């Protein structure tokens, strides 16, 4: 009995918190387009923070939107939020799904209710008729751009430490896939290939462990900036030089502002972009749909760059840093 009461208390406390987190569900009929935005937790990474800020900046009353936001890293909570938005009769449902599966039934409900669905950042395993458009990053291409760049460095030998993101995530698969292929085709050496789960400190420990073992390496391919930073911390401790024209090549992804500054200082060599600014794409799609136009293509792949430390400028840092 006691435990049940306690659990009930805890559950209601959490409910209160989530209610606070997603308030602002006011209805108004002043010609605003109602959008429900379901995103991942903005604290997840610098990428997500930039993405969320971009959304909040675009979908404002001034721009003609009445936007509601809800955040979760868990698929089932996201689906609950989607159901709530469908019941609230929003005009558009914008979705960055935590997981690719499980979305069919709620999206069918949305379709019946006349809610138009637009996917951003992440795609899902559902019939394409269930959504209007999908604006995504091509993670495979990001990996390929990075690996092509690395190939272009024409090193006499490639001894690579590969720090992977959380296994199974789209970013990890795409960025690992290209490197794995190159390792197989070109005979590069993987000194170690481990997941540091996007975590700088784990990355430090993994690189530290390679240094302690005395193995030689000349490339660190980290699948995000945090892990590259962690790797560099271990190199600094062991007095191994890194950056342009130095012993070890440092590669990162996501283009955090601080990471691009490291490139500018020539401490790192390469940073691949993962474009978080989807809001303007979504905005123009909604405008088109409202004007009754049909979209020319369902899947929009965003432009993404790779920055080289020898060519990056301060202007790039200001423009693309997140």
């Amino acid at each position, binding site marked *: 009995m006691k435990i049940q009461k306690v659990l009930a208390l805890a559950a209601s406390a*959490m409910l209160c918190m989530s209610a606070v987190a997603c308030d602002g569900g006011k209805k108004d009929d002043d010609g605003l387009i109602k959008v429900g935005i379901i995103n991942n937790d903005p604290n997840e*990474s610098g990428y997500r923070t930039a993405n969320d800020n971009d959304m909040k900046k675009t979908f404002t009353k001034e721009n003609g939107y009445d936007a509601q936001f809800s955040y979760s890293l868990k698929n089932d909570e996201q689906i609950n939020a989607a159901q709530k938005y469908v019941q609230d009769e929003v005009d558009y449902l914008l979705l960055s799904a935590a997981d690719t599966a499980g979305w069919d039934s709620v999206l069918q409900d949305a379709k019946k209710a006349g809610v138009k669905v637009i996917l951003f950042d992440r795609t899902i395993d559902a019939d394409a008729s269930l959504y209007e458009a999908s604006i995504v990053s091509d993670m495979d291409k990001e990996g390929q751009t990075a690996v092509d760049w690395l190939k272009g460095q024409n090193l006499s030998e490639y001894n690579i430490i590969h720090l992977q993101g959380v296994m199974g995530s789209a970013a990890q698969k795409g960025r690992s896939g290209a490197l794995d292929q190159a390792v197989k085709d070109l005979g590069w050496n993987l000194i170690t290939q481990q997941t540091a789960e996007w975590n700088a400190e784990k990355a430090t420990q993994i690189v530290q462990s390679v240094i302690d073992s005395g193995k030689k390496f000349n490339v660190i391919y980290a699948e995000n900036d945090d892990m590259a930073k962690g790797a560099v911390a271990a190199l600094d401790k062991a007095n191994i030089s890194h950056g342009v024209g130095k012993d070890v090549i440092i590669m990162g992804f996501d283009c955090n502002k601080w990471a691009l500054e490291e490139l500018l200082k020539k401490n790192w060599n390469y940073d691949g972009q993962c474009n978080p600014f989807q809001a303007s794409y979504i905005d123009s799609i909604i405008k088109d749909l409202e004007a009754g136009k049909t979209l020319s293509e369902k899947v929009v792949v965003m432009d993404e760059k790779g920055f080289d430390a020898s060519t990056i400028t301060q202007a790039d840092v200001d423009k693309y840093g997140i």
Partner: protein
Amino acid sequence: MQSRNNTVSELLMKLFRRQIFIPIAALLLLALFNLIADPSFFKITLGTNSAGDPVLSGYLITILDYGSELAILAIGMTLVTAASGGQDISVGAAIAISGSVVLRVLCGSNSRPETLQAPIIVAFLVSCLVAMAFGAFNGTLVAYFKIQPMVATLILFTAGRSIAAWINNNELPIISEPSFGYFGGFIPGIPIPTPVFIAVACMIITALTLRFTNLGLYCQAVGINDKSSRLNGLNPAFIKFLTYVILGLCVAVAGLIKVSRLSSINYSVIAKDIEMDAILAVALGGNALSGGKFNMTASILGAYVIQFLTTTLYKFNVQSDALSAYKAVVVIALVVLSAPIVREKLTALKNSLKKQPAAKEVA
């Protein structure tokens, strides 16, 4: 000859029965494994870092270095476990909060300050206060509202990282001042990592506190039976509350080391899953997770066993997402070994082994 054999076996038996036997045996086992697999594991070299200062490096140094935060947390977790018979699962989130507070005080409103806005000691003291306040929150729920520790701390476990992000307006501050990095790295001229010194300082303070105050005794008394301890004039609720505040202090120290290591923070991954490691350290120390008697030294050793295991697995290139599976194996082995029914069987087995030679001699 006979009597000497007896005393040796008695000594072994004594050691075996001592609680500290478990973590020591685990450490020796790991050390032995590494010695056989690759003796260079124990090599320590003196080199210089990129700033030109001398630093010691090697696997053993890595273990001592990265085990520090866990050892510090294990101190607080042991007290909480002993007094309240439950564990605080919010320490990872609390580290995110206290680390975030440190950075917030140092940076002010600018997330990329050229100079520090406040002395580091002030930032640390503020974070201590905040972490102790959150500890007090948990402690109040557990001690005065009698909520189960795991449920009470679940609240902060869920909300903590969002609070941490909110403290810094969702920005990721980076501190360029090199002296801030000393706490998680090296002080110029001293080749031993600073976290080791911090951990040792915490251990000495804990040892002195346990030696010269009744804290240890009171925690055990409350953990064993809080009704009878109340009849003996203790205030069980306050003692439980106090242990959570002490854990809060440990969290602040660990949080300072964590943010100092990278001079930055990532709210969602900093100190991720460290609460489970801290609980595991307490369990590895042979302490009953249901409260009561405890052995602080064994818990601290348990923390280093976990780091030893982690470093060993990294060395042998075990996929790091499989690390938790290996830890799980260790936990299962420990839990089974410490179960009363298994202990009884083992003692019975030992007794029968002892009797057999004795019987032969008579014959």
